[in-house]
């Protein structure tokens, strides 16, 4: 074990952390919007909307993320129409393709989490809100959504960690995030173990902090469960 090399690689690999965080942050933010729309459409009662969103969730949960990334990065460019469209400047860049693939992937999983959470809201609470004279939108905004979001947090914490790990696949389409940079350094130094151990430790650290953050959000949202001082 070459300890000196390991120490030297820490700041270098840490330089790739911002890119990993950007990928994960962008995917989670956009994925939340996709998940929200998908969950609502699946619960809307409209046959067509529920069918289309159901198919989306089925396909993206049933196939490996690597296929989704390659399909978007290599596959879409095959079509003349895509290459001539206004989207091409985006779809040409590995960064945008990676974000798009991660977004669609996490959107599918998160929509299922959100759907389950919305269905778990006790019916009595909704009836009570209606009895108070709240409109449908107001019931959703004030009762269903806050209760559902609190309910989904533990499962969403898992999804955040999965996304941090999934961002490593961006290295297969030339992105130099933590995994990509680690491979590059290894090709120069041939120190497989040292570099990968440092890279793995960085991912563990990110995931540890992410899980703490979700735990904190959970604590903030459940004041009624805390012991009264």
């Amino acid at each position: 074990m070459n300890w000196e090399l390991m120490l030297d690689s820490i700041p270098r690999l840490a330089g790739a952390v911002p890119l990993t965080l950007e990928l994960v942050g962008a995917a989670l933010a956009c994925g939340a919007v996709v998940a929200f729309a998908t969950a609502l459409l699946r619960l809307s009662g409209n046959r067509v909307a529920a069918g289309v969103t159901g198919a989306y969730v089925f396909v993206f949960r049933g196939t490996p993320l690597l296929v989704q990334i390659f399909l978007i990065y290599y596959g879409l460019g095959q079509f003349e129409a895509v290459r001539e469209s206004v989207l091409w400047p985006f779809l040409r860049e590995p960064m945008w393709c990676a974000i798009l693939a991660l977004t669609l992937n996490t959107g599918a999983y998160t929509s299922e989490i959100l759907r389950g959470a919305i269905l778990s809201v006790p019916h009595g609470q909704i009836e009570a809100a209606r009895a108070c004279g709240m409109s449908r939108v107001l019931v959703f905004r004030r009762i269903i959504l806050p209760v559902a979001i609190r309910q989904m947090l533990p499962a969403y914490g898992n999804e955040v960690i999965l996304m941090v790990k999934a961002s490593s696949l961006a290295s297969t389409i030339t992105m130099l995030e933590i995994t990509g940079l680690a491979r590059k350094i290894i090709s120069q130094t041939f120190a497989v173990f040292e570099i990968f151990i440092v890279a793995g430790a960085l991912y563990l650290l990110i995931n540890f902090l992410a899980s703490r953050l979700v735990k904190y959000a959970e604590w903030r949202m459940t004041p009624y469960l805390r012991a009264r001082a």
Partner: protein
Amino acid sequence: MLDLLSFGPNGWGGQLLAGTAMTMAVALSSFLLGLLFGAGGAAAKLSQNVALRGVAEVYTTVVRGVPELLVIYLLFFGGSGMVMAVARVFGYDGYIELNAFSIGVASVGLISGAYSTEVIRGAVQAVPFGQIEAARACGMNRWLILRRVLVPQTLRYALPGLGNVWQLTLKDTALISVTALAEIMRVSHVAAGSTRQPFLFYSTAAALYLLLTTVSTTAFERAERYANRGVRRV
């Protein structure tokens, strides 16, 4: 364009079929290896031995917290070195090279095992303790209790969780394509490159994975129904 997928000299059908068989072989072997690791990990986590519990805890935390791709790379680039280091201890000094299949199965099995450990541990803990006491009172020895009481009940509780682990394992096998093992993803990549039809081949790959995950979901549902025979439905 679709004749590229046909069987025959100009089509990739044969290779894709072989790739699907390879994916299934890797997934099944990794899942079984993972079950072995999982049973061992669960036993370690539930044992009285602090050291064993610590090792199992580190195993599940690290493997579940680090990207799958990193685990595969580590074994792919460092696996031969590790095996040679062990061989040197036993006095063998030659060069050992591992093939892509065994490295793939070892790495995906390692990942699968970390998730299986948690599933099996939870299932074992779900078996009511009174049943173990009752079995002991009947005079059964430890192995008999394991075989007749613990394992059949654990299986029932673990099946839904193991179904999830199987899906994860199946999808993780796609990552082994980075080691050039000719499974679905690798064949599609090569075909996409040489025919310049990436969309066609990657969507075919997606369809093949979708087929495998759908069929296996049904299989797991059947297995659950079988394991729950004789249990009253709510």
